[in-house]
Structure formats: structure tokens, C-alpha cells
């Protein structure tokens, strides 16, 4: 037994934790001891444990929100596991054990065999290339003083930054899922860009996908110091399998004066089979705080998960700050998405732009939910919202829930919405030029999403476009 495990065992004892399973996996259920154990396994400082415990206690008093326009069977929170060390997850022995549909998607996306194994949870002996890519990247970043590491590492190496900013945008008491995440978060990413530094690379979590199973309760914190500039990419286009159905991530962005944070996501968690069985429930809290003259821009392409509940938002705190939200959300088969944004204008002359494109196919249900709130002191604030829905077939649904509150009369808001059906005529026109139905749909749909795709970094945009085609495959006869 290594000494670190010994310490752990002792700690467990110290906290009165009794269990008969091996020390790397906890039995299902959530209680204070579980929270303590997670913290101790990560060797966390006392203040962080205290924070987790406060979150846990708050969570106990909260109830799961039921206002989103999604339906699912009740979640048994005591039936879920809240900690399992990556190595304890039993890997599949070969790709033969993986859902063939998943594999065919990988092939279409041109993903290498090794990566296919990584993504689907098959044991691999060779260490993934991306680890070395990661190392080179880190060297380049540290030259500029940029910190980019796992959340756990940051807790140990940059405790002052974590202590200052953790929960400063999304307090643990924010909502049911954020409280749950705060109590039991496993790991995630941390990123700090020093004053005046323009981050020399697009920061991507892609290279960390081999860290299996960190996705369940992920926590990300990005701090751009004054005048800094960073573009961050989350996720990858390949559908990721997970043995955990419930995912509740939190992302906090802090954009100090004159800084810019651009956060792009491609979310493609396993959506379940055609009947919706086995898909991920993705309940995410993402929010940024923009100080004076700062800009936060969210771009998301949401194609995966059985249920998506997610509202990347911006608190426009400082004068002249800017918030943007560009979103493409696609649902097919039995998928349900309730997604949108909140723009809270506090500072003067703040400006926000919302472009949302919802695509529904199969029996999918897609809801846009947005809140634009202009507070009394936010003089001269401006918002532009454009919210377009596209329907493919007759059995899907699109819904919009826009809320606009303006508390002064020097501000302006503009809202445009449209719903269109992908036309038989459009598809026929493409076919008459030699394009297959599938090709036609992906073309028409990516045209529909162009305003959002152009916000994505180049390679990401191409992948996203391809992904859309694959997600909608078979949605038209």
C-alpha cells in the first residue's frame, strides 16, 4: 500500500467513513461523508472542504427545478455514485463491445482507432499522442505566464486565485445543479491569463479526453486579467460515452477590465439510442462576469445528450461591457433541449447580442429560453436578439420563451424570431443538382446556422458542420 493511500484510509477513518468497497469507488449515495471523502482524496485544503460542505448543506434544502420544458423520470440522487477514481472504471476489452452506431459515427468523423477507443472507454496501452501535444502546449503557454491546468492542480498550485474566484460568478447557492456540482465536483480546467497578455494559442480541452470520466461533475474557471485575451474550446465533436447518466457541470468566466474571453463549445455527449434510452442528462450552469470594457462571448453547438439544460449567461457588470451568445442546438429522435442565455445589464452602455438557432427533427423538442434584463442604472444599454427555429418533419417541436425586462428608458432591445420548416422544395432543388437528401439537409441546415458557425474557430466550424449532418441523418426519407 502506497503512503498516499494510507493517508486516505486514515482520513476516512478520521471522518468516520465506513465502507467495504475498494477505496477508489464509493457506493451509491450522497451524504456529508461522501463530500469529505472526495475532498480528502484530492488532498484539498480545509477552506475548499468547508465550501463543498456549505454547498452540500444548501443543496439539501433545494429542489430540482421543473420549469424547463423537458420531461424525464425522477432522478434518484441517492442511487448515483459521486466518486470513482478513473482507474477503477472497468474498461471494455475491445471495440467489439461498443455500440455499433457509435462506431459508425466515429468512422464518419474520421476519428483514428486509438481515439475511438479512448472515447468509447476501451482499454488502450499506447499513450495518446495528445499527451505530448499537451506538454508542448504547456511550455509555450508558460512563456507567456498563462496558467492552464486541471482544476485539482490549480487548487494546489494557485490556491489564492481559486480562493478568490471560485464561486464568484456562480455561487454554490445559485441553483440545485450548481449546488450539487459545488459539493461533489470531480475535476475540470483552470485557466488564468495575466494582465495584458493575449493568449498565444486556442486553449482546448480536447487533448485531455483521455482523462476518462471527469465529465460528470466538471468545474471550469477561467480568469482573464485586465486587458487579457483568450479563446477557449470545450469538448469535441465525437460522441462521448459515459457510464454516468447525470452530468452537472459549472463554468465560471471572469473577464476583468478590458479583457476578452471567447468560449466555444461543441457538446456531443451520448444522446441515447433512437428511443432515447441511455442518453446523458446534461444540466449545466455557465456564466461569465464582464467588468468594464470587457467582452465575453459564448458560442455553442449542442448536438448531444438526451436532455440539455443550459443557459450560458453574461453579467454585464462594468460600463461598456459586451456579452454575446451564439448558439446552435439540434435535437433528433427523442432528444430534448431547453437552452438559451441570460444577459444581465448592470453597467452603462452595455451591449449584448443573442443569436440562437434551434433545429428539431424526429421527435425532438427544442426550447429557446432567454432573459434580457436591463437594470435601472444600465443607461444606454442595448440588446439584439435573433431567435430562429427550423423544423424537419412533423413530429418535432420548437418553442421560444423570451423574457425582456427593461428598467430605464434610454435602453433599446430588439427581438426577432422566425420558425421555418425545411422545405420539400429546398431539398428537391438540391437533389435536382445531384445532392443526396442527407447532403441537402446538412447544406440547408448549415446555411441556417451560418451566423453561428462563423463565430467558431475554423477547424471547429468544419467539424461542427459535419456533425450536424450526422446528427440529422435519417431525419428525412
Amino acid at each position: 500500500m502506497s503512503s498516499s493511500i494510507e493517508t486516505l484510509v486514515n482520513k476516512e477513518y478520521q471522518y468516520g467513513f465506513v465502507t467495504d468497497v475498494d477505496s477508489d469507488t464509493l457506493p451509491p449515495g450522497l451524504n456529508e461523508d461522501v463530500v469529505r471523502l472526495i475532498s480528502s482524496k484530492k488532498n484539498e485544503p480545509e477552506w475548499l472542504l468547508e465550501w463543498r460542505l456549505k454547498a452540500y448543506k444548501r443543496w439539501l434544502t433545494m429542489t430540482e427545478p421543473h420549469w424547463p420544458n423537458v420531461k424525464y423520470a425522477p432522478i434518484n440522487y441517492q442511487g448515483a455514485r459521486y466518486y470513482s477514481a478513473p482507474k477503477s472504471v472497468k474498461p471494455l476489452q475491445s471495440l467489439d463491445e461498443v455500440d455499433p452506431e457509435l462506431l459508425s459515427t466515429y468512422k464518419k468523423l474520421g476519428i483514428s482507432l486509438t481515439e475511438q477507443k479512448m472515447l468509447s472507454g476501451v482499454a488502450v496501452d499506447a499513450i495518446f499522442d495528445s499527451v505530448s501535444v499537451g506538454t508542448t502546449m504547456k511550455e509555450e503557454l508558460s512563456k507567456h505566464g498563462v496558467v492552464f491546468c486541471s482544476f485539482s492542480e490549480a487548487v494546489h498550485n494557485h490556491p489564492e486565485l481559486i480562493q478568490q474566484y471560485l464561486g464568484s460568478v456562480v455561487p454554490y447557492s445559485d441553483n440545485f445543479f450548481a449546488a450539487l456540482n459545488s459539493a461533489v465536483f470531480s475535476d475540470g480546467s483552470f485557466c488564468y491569463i495575466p494582465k495584458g497578455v493575449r493568449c498565444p494559442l486556442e486553449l482546448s480541452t480536447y487533448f485531455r479526453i483521455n482523462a476518462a470520466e471527469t465529465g460528470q461533475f466538471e468545474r471550469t474557471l477561467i480568469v482573464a486579467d485586465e486587458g487579457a485575451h483568450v479563446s477557449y474550446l470545450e469538448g469535441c465533436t465525437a460522441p462521448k460515452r459515459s457510464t454516468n447518466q447525470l452530468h452537472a457541470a459549472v463554468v465560471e468566466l471572469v473577464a476583468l477590465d478590458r479583457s476578452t474571453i471567447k468560449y466555444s463549445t461543441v457538446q456531443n455527449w451520448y444522446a441515447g439510442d433512437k428511443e432515447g434510452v441511455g442518453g446523458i442528462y446534461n444540466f449545466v450552469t455557465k456564466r461569465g462576469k464582464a467588468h468594464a470594457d470587457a467582452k465575453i462571448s459564448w458560442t455553442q453547438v449542442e448536438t448531444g445528450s438526451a436532455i440539455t439544460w443550459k443557459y450560458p449567461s453574461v453579467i454585464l457588470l462594468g460600463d461598456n461591457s459586451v456579452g454575446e451568445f451564439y448558439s446552435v442546438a439540434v435535437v433528433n429522435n427523442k432528444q430534448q433541449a431547453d437552452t438559451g442565455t441570460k444577459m444581465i445589464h448592470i453597467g452603462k452602455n452595455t451591449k449584448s447580442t443573442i443569436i440562437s438557432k434551434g433545429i428539431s427533427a424526429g421527435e425532438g423538442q427544442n426550447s429557446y429560453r432567454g432573459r434580457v434584463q436591463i437594470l435601472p442604472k444600465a443607461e444606454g444599454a442595448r440588446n439584439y436578439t435573433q431567435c430562429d427555429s427550423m423544423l424537419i418533419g412533423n413530429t418535432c417541436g420548437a418553442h421560444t420563451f423570451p423574457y425582456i425586462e427593461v428598467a430605464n428608458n434610454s435602453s433599446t432591445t430588439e427581438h426577432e424570431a422566425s420558425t421555418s420548416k425545411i422545405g420539400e422544395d429546398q431539398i428537391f432543388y438540391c437533389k435536382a443538382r445531384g445532392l443526396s437528401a442527407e447532403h441537402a439537409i446538412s447544406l440547408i441546415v448549415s446555411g441556417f446556422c451560418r451566423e453561428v458557425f462563423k463565430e467558431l474557430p475554423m477547424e471547429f466550424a468544419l467539424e461542427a458542420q459535419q456533425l450536424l449532418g450526422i446528427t440529422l441523418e435519417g431525419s428525412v426519407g
Partner: protein
Amino acid sequence: MLTIDNLHANAGDKAILKGISLTVNAGEVHAIMGPNGSGKSTLAQVIAGHPGFEVTKGSITYVGQDLLEMDPEVRAQQGVFLAFQYPVEIPGVTNAYFLRSAYNELRKAHGKEEMDPMEFLDLMEQKLKVVDMDPAMLQRSVNAGFSGGEKKRNEILQMAVLEPKLAILDETDSGLDIDALRVVAGGVNALKRPDNATIVVTHYQRLLNHIVPDFVHVLAGGKIVKSGGKELALELEAKGYDWLVGTA
């Protein structure tokens, strides 16, 4: 090249084509004229494979194959081209991208490599000249916000790129100004070869001065009520359709 035999087609319960027979050989130009609502566009769309029409009787043979058995995209890949009476808008998709996708589908269907964007641009430069079109139009969304005339010109640009065996032009001349008509007709003529054929649907003799037909057919009430040479078009211009429709 194309043999249509006793073709009947419905839209829903409504019978529109009621027994059309027509043979088009390589190298020929056929003009189809006829009153509004007589079924000209329907015929054109049935040949292209529009799913909104159901063929209830008859057959279409195209280069020795059963055309009605082929999916619309396969027909296109095999060289059937329809210039739409009402070209469809596809917002957000650039004309250039659309054309390249179509062109590459054609190449793939014939076992050729896809063409990369740079090469394709060179090709486009020549093709734009055929219809005298501003290259800026390539960067705009397919037909979105195009004027009526621009849409028609764009159809012929697509035809120039795809070089079909059988081109069907459905009222491509409607909405064109006099200069544009000359340009478009010139484009169609420039694309004519001994091994391809053209069917032009039109209301105006004027177009047929530029694209000279070998045969003129009059469609009325879903049937071809009269066929003749190019002089028939002049006769129609003078007399209208009434004298023919009466015999239908």
C-alpha cells in the same frame, strides 16, 4: 435520348398530365408551349423527379434506362438538368459552395476525384463568362435576394457548370430583360453539342429566335395537342391557343 410514352401524372388526387408522348434525340432542341396551367412545369418536374407528383401510367426512358426508377439526385448525376421556373432560395449557403457541392457530386458519380476550391474557382471564372455574371454573385446565398432575372441567369450558370446531357429550361426567359435574354440564350447555345439535347418551355416566340427549336409542341389540358416545326411557334404567336385548345 428521352422517350416519354403515354405519361399520366397526378398531384394528390388531381390528374395533371393525361397521356404525354414525346421523343427527344441527341442534338435536338424541343420547345414546349401552351397556356398557363396546362402542365408544362409539371412535365418538367416529373422528368426531374419531384416527389410531389405521382406517375400513374406510362413510362419515361432516358438513355436506355427507366428514368422513373431513378432517384432525383441520380437523374441529375446522369445528366438530367432542370432550370427551375421558380429557383429556390437557400439562405446562408453561398452560391459558390452550392455549385461546388453539385459539381463534386457529379464527379463522384462518375468515379472522378473531387475538385478542390482553388481549382474550382478557375473553372468558375470561365463559366461566369458564359452568362456574363458578376463574380460577386458567387459569394451571395443561393438565390436569396436575387432579382428575378438574376435567379434565371444563375440557373444557366449552374447548367454551364454541370454540362447536362438533357437540359430542361422552364420559362428561363420569363423576367429577363432584352439584353439578359440574349446573354442567356447565347449561353444555352454555347453549351449545345451534338450529344446533348434541350427542352425549352416558353410562352414567347422571342426566345425561339435565339434558341432555334427543331420541334415545337403545344401542351394543353395535360396533353400534347399539336406538334410541328419552328414555324408553329410563329403561328401560335399570331393566333393564340384557342384554335388548338378547342380540339383537345
